[in-house]
């Protein structure tokens, strides 16, 4: 079976003034559909950069990156945006909910951006699974960290993305809420065969995944 994510010699160099800062120095990674993969490594090893490239937020500087058969190294910014809209869901450490919208609106806006319209059945199913039915009319400022992250997960999966990319989803949560969020991600993976790539510093979080990938200095050192 073709992997849903395949990178080969993936490089990313940031320019800070006249200085070139390599964030990825040739990362090779294969992820198959339905896998739950944790990426671990020290700060600055390139984990978030890898996630941003796989999510189409930034282009690679070199190497190959195929996501669901699409070669990101040859795609324009608009193409990657379109791809992200339909195939990728993001969960961030800082939740990143829109503060002026309610939880319900934060979830619905993802469907609106995708352009397929509101799907009430999918909405109800996701909201039930994440247990946020009674929080839907609250704004993010009125929700706890755990609740906000559950809303963020709901937003990420409402459009049934091929891949869920999670950037330290438990980084801002206490251990109880971390466990709830990890359990939900695990449930998503098992129930819907949701492919998940999760970055984490937390060994307990990494243990929930099927596979743990270790990074150092912009490369994958063990898989």
């Amino acid at each position, binding site marked *: 079976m073709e992997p849903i994510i395949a990178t080969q010699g993936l490089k990313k160099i940031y320019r800070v003034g006249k200085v070139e800062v390599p964030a990825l120095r040739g990362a090779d990674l294969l992820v198959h559909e339905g896998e739950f993969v944790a990426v671990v490594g020290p700060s600055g090893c390139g984990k978030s950069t890898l996630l*941003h490239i796989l*999510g189409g*937020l*930034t282009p690679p500087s070199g190497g190959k990156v195929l996501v669901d058969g699409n070669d990101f190294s040859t795609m324009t910014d*608009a193409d990657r*945006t*379109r791809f*992200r*809209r*339909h195939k*990728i869901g*993001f969960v*961030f450490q800082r939740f*990143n*909910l*829109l*503060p*002026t*919208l309610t939880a319900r*609106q934060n979830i*619905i*806006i*993802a469907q*609106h*951006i*995708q352009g397929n319209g509101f799907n009430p059945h999918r909405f109800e199913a996701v909201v039930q699974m994440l247990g946020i039915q009674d929080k839907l009319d609250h704004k993010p400022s009125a929700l706890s960290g755990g609740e906000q992250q559950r809303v963020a997960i709901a*937003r990420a999966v409402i459009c049934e993305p091929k891949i869920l990319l999670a950037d330290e989803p438990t980084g801002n949560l206490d251990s109880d809420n971390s466990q709830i969020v990890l359990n939900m991600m695990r449930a998503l993976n098992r129930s819907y065969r949701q492919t998940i790539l999760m970055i984490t510093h937390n060994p307990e979080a990494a243990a929930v995944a099927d596979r743990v990938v270790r990074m150092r200095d912009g490369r994958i050192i063990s898989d």
Partner: protein
Amino acid sequence: MVNRMVVSNLLHRPVRTAVSILAVAIEVGMVMLVVGMTTGLLHETAKRVEGVGADLMVQPPGASFLFGLTQAPMPIKIGDRLAQIPHVLVVAPALFQFNSTGGLNLIYGIDMPSFNRVTGGFVYHAGGPFTAPYDILVDDWYAKANHVKAGQTLNLLNHDFRVAGIVEHGKGARLFIPLATAEDLSGARDKASIFFVKCTDPGYTEDVVNAIHRLLPKYQVLSVKEYMSLMTSNNMPALNTFITAMIVVAVAIGFLVIFLSMYTTITERTREIGILKSLGASKGYIIEAILREASLLCLVGIGAGYAGSVIARKLILEAFPTLSVELTMGWAFWAALLALVGSLLGAFYPALRAAQLDPVDALAYE
């Protein structure tokens, strides 16, 4: 959904929203009131001259249709020659005096009998006609604006006048003195600034104009119809320039405030724009959301501007009853269009900047 987000964003920053709406309202109000006051003044002046009831007016060579600028007098005997032209019913001379004491006013020195025949006579709200050389008639708008009552003394042209009567407005000037007194004050004995000519039938106006041209080749002869058509801002020296300058200032205010408001909005919401981009929002989606926000601000501002203009007009007319402010649908439309275009232009650069933000940088924005 975008509209909900736009409304939520606007409500989230009520002061900035209110300031932006106020700026657009000032822009719309300024355009409507400046145009309304200038056209109102012109139309009201024109209507007053039309209200004299003459069919045509004769002025000296080189005179302007702006009466306040014309004091060059003609021999009053010309009136007798005009009266002999076929189809001329009556000729009324008037000598203009420009008064600058206690405000700017054009005073008509009139020969009461002939002026009454042209106009059909004054309608008196109080008092009656002149009984002495230094009597004056004032119209009801002037009386209201200056709290003038019949019988009181008015100091005009550096002389004291007794207010003989308060008359219905709309007969040329707001202030009338006897012709002989005007001649004494200007040292122009047996002279007139204008002759108001009434024909036996308005259908003869063209014939009479031609006859006057033959009789007095160099004199200015204007039918009232022509005069009315001349009383537009296009024919007023520098008035169009003034109106244009005021409109440019008004539009600049709206443009700059919306620009600044949207620019600070974009800076403040950099992270939110990053979130939208992470969800797959295209550049067009982000530009559209910001332009919708500016449009909504603008539409509310236009509504507030209309309401403000109506209230301001009422207040202006209460404070200055002699002024006239015409708020027209045509200029309401133009003011709204200018505000909308200015706002969209003001929001476009911030919107473009937001659309071009790097999503990774935007998500990392603190």
